[in-house]
């Protein structure tokens, strides 16, 4: 980065950024003096007396579950779809083969750690309403666990074992399932905050969201691993 070569446009942009940041710092200092109001107080009061929800962050976005899940899945699926299309195009042009690094330490640790990581992802998706976690976090963790397995036995083999045989066929089915569940919970008179039915809806929605994100994150990771040539 050469400061002397900065164009006039870049200097303007930098000046705007610096002024903007100074304004934010000033706003925080003035807010600090007047005292900050807690905006989520109403939600805390509403959720405080509820036995089903112990994770208040989940409790808030559970109220808007349908819209949150709909647009979250839309963005995530667009990214996965873009990568899948490009991956198919690339495969038709050239066939890449990833070289496998043979190491007993990696093999042994991956076979030991993979089930634990997968189980942790499942647990985080299952218990999102009671503690830290969520469908997205659980799915990404489980996807990373499969990547660890891919390091040990090869990305292509894992791709054939998991993705081609199983995941590719159920990916869109799970997407439909997630949308159907959140639509049902929004349209039907099921209050997710009371009763056993509400808890069941929360758990099924989180697990199916986790499954969708697991397949999507694996697709993304698999693509980058494959086109790098090796891992």
């Amino acid at each position, binding site marked *: *980065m050469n400061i002397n070569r*900065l164009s006039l446009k*870049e200097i303007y*942009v*930098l000046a705007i*950024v*610096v002024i903007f*940041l100074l304004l*934010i*710092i000033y706003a*925080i*200092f003035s807010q*600090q003096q007047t005292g*900050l109001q*807690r*905006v*989520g*107080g109403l*939600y*805390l*009061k509403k959720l*405080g007396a509820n036995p089903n929800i*112990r*994770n*208040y*962050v989940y*409790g*808030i*976005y559970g109220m808007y579950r349908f819209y*949150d899940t709909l*647009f*979250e899945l839309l*963005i*995530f699926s*667009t*990214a*996965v779809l*873009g*990568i899948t299309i*490009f991956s198919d195009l690339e495969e038709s042009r050239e066939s890449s083969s990833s070289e496998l690094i043979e190491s007993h330490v990696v093999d042994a640790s991956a076979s030991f750690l993979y089930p634990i990581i997968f189980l942790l992802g499942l647990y985080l998706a299952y218990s999102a309403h009671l*503690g*830290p976690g*969520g469908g*997205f976090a659980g799915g*990404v963790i489980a996807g990373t666990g499969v990547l660890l397995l891919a390091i040990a036995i090869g990305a292509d083999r894992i791709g054939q074992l998991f993705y081609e045989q199983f995941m590719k066929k159920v990916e869109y089915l799970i997407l439909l399932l997630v949308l159907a569940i959140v639509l049902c919970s929004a349209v039907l008179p099921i209050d997710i905050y009371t009763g056993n039915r509400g808890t069941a809806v929360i758990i099924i929605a989180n697990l199916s969201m986790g499954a969708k994100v697991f397949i999507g*994150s694996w697709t*993304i990771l698999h*693509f*980058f691993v494959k*086109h790098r040539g090796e891992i």
Partner: protein
Amino acid sequence: MTLFTSTISILVVGLGIIGLILKKNVLMKLLSLNIVNTSTILFFVLIVSEQGDRAPIGSSGLARMADPLPQALVLTSIVINFGVLALSLLFTMVLVKRYHTLDIDKIETSVKRDYKEESP
């Protein structure tokens, strides 16, 4: 939120934006974008928690609990960050395959040249 932590998060946002503008390497630009996004999430999480506050999880009363609303708002941003980063890396791969460089100025020049050649 203490002044120290808020200032730190804003400075990291600034560093990310400066990297986004000044770096010529496309990968470095993406990395800077990721830094901006992460530090914005940090800012939102810090903005409503004070020293001594508990995380908004558990059943031991609502006293001294951090405000959960900004945390719930930025959850979606993490997913968007993941999706944007994955797609941007894909487009970077396409650009590198076509122009064999990561320099944004060279890519811009090549794109302009290609456009001139293609247009009548």
